């Protein structure tokens, strides 16, 4: 019974939250890695693109709620998501036209593009605050739980609760669908293959007649879709607060680099590695060890490696270790 309880506790407090967080990070890191592969710079505005997309999705959600639209047990935000993606895609395309395209034309150094993306981040951050403010917003509706703690305990008779929130299930399902669609697009369609070709060898892609402007535009639209989806899933799972999305930038970059910048598969693996480390290191293992340890040897302290305030330190530490020992990432990325 104790082993079962320990297992349920690990599932409930580590595996489930880390999986959904990992899926959100993976989607964010996919966007960063795609931009890096095609446009060859680290996009610091990605976190704020997520915030912007989520903010618009929330506005559409409110509008649909006011109109009485609903998906029943599913959150209304899922109907609003495509609209949020459309607006965000429009914004990033406009940004590319007005800002980035010039630097591509003059073949600016990557660090200049990084700095420009910081300027864009500023503007997007301001826009998001202007549109929706700085307060914390809860916009999840529909059923809250798939498995609630009370039901689980009643059904199993275990001491440990297990709850599975619908936002977590939605995150995992949606992320799986999005990743499947992305890989299908990249590996099976002509446009997707031309993107990979462009990322692999830009000069040869140009020689083959691949239109760079089209590749760049498609990349931005996909990045906007990934960012908005990641942002909305994160917001449904936790809550929306513009500043939190800026702070997500670090774990997202860490995920992309750990997996190998420019490598989509690596971004997904990186997202889960970062998420599981973060949750695992900041979880207080006292309870689990208490179940497992022989009587009388239960741990006294919380058995928490780091307090949750330092969760970003975990992504940072992993990032530093990867930079020190394997700068191209676990799955061979493009950059050193």
């Amino acid at each position: 019974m104790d082993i079962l309880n320990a297992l349920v506790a690990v599932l409930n407090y580590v595996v489930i939250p880390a999986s959904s967080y990992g899926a959100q990070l993976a989607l964010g890191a996919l966007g960063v890695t795609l931009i890096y592969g095609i446009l060859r710079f680290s996009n610091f505005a990605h976190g704020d693109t997520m915030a912007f997309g989520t903010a618009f999705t929330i506005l559409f959600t409110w509008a649909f709620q006011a109109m009485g639209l609903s998906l029943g047990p599913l959150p209304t935000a899922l109907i609003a998501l495509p609209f949020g993606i459309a607006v965000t895609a429009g914004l990033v395309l406009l940004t590319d036209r007005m800002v980035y395209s010039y630097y591509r034309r003059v073949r600016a150094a990557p660090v200049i593009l990084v700095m420009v993306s910081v300027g864009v981040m500023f503007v997007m951050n301001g826009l998001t605050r202007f549109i929706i403010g700085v307060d914390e917003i809860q916009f999840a509706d529909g059923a809250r739980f798939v498995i609630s703690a009370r039901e689980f305990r009643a059904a199993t008779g275990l001491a440990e609760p297990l709850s599975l929130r619908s936002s977590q299930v939605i995150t995992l399902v949606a992320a799986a669908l999005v990743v499947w669609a992305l890989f299908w697009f990249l590996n099976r369609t002509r446009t997707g293959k031309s993107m990979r070709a462009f990322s692999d060898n830009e000069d040869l892609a140009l020689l083959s007649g691949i239109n760079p402007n089209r590749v760049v535009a498609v990349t931005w639209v996909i990045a906007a879709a990934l960012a908005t989806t990641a942002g909305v899933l994160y917001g449904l799972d936790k809550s929306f607060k513009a500043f939190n999305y800026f702070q997500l930038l670090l774990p997202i970059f860490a995920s992309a680099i750990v997996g190998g910048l420019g490598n989509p598969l690596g971004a997904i693996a990186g997202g889960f590695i970062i998420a599981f480390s973060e949750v695992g290191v900041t979880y207080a293992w006292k309870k689990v060890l208490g179940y497992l340890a022989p009587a009388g040897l239960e741990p006294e302290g919380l058995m928490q490696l780091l307090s949750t305030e330092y969760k970003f330190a975990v992504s940072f530490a992993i990032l530093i270790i990867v930079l020190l020992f394997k700068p191209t990432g676990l799955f061979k990325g493009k950059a050193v």
Partner: protein
Amino acid sequence: MSFLLAENMTGGYGATDILHDCTLRVEKGQIAVIVGPNGAGKSTAMKAVFGMLNLREGHVVLGGEDITRLSPQDRVAKGMGFVPQVNNVFPTMSVQENLEMGAFLRDDDFSDTMEQVFDLFPILKDKRHQNAGELSGGQRQQVAVGRALMTQPRLLMLDEPTAGVSPIVMDELFDRIIEVARTGISILMVEQNARQALEIADMGYVLVQGANKYTDTGAALLADPEVRRTFLGG
């Protein structure tokens, strides 16, 4: 009139000219080879034909059409295929995808062309699902040539295709290039291995300091004692 006529090409990448009144011709279905010492502007001459540098003087005519002002991409559409010396494949894409990318500009069904490429380079058919970056140097060159053939070019340009491959692989590649020429495709090729290249060449151009030094058939150049002494090492 020659199929490719690049006459009096003068120009360079920056302020100083690298090419001085350089002229190259390739007849239909024939092989022309550019040889010469290091820094003679061999690759530059080929890049000029392909439109990768601005010419101050001279013009490039392909199949009777003046293409001097066209961009490299537009020249691909006009029937030029170019195989760069290095970085000439998409390393994380499979062999088959590399070939597909070669045919990117084509809207018609290109499966026949791909079969022809596979007939020419049978090893590629076996490795069609393997990433190009994982192949050996010689196989990568085959992918690169195959990619350029996918546009069904009328003129195929190769920049030192045998650089860094073993002599056996080199002979093999030259055999394939002769086969390509027999299908009616004109070949313009820059080669470091001058003797072997001239052996298969219908026409040879010896460039020195960006200008034509000797121009004759491959066999004639090989027989010329002056050329042998100065460029072919005796």
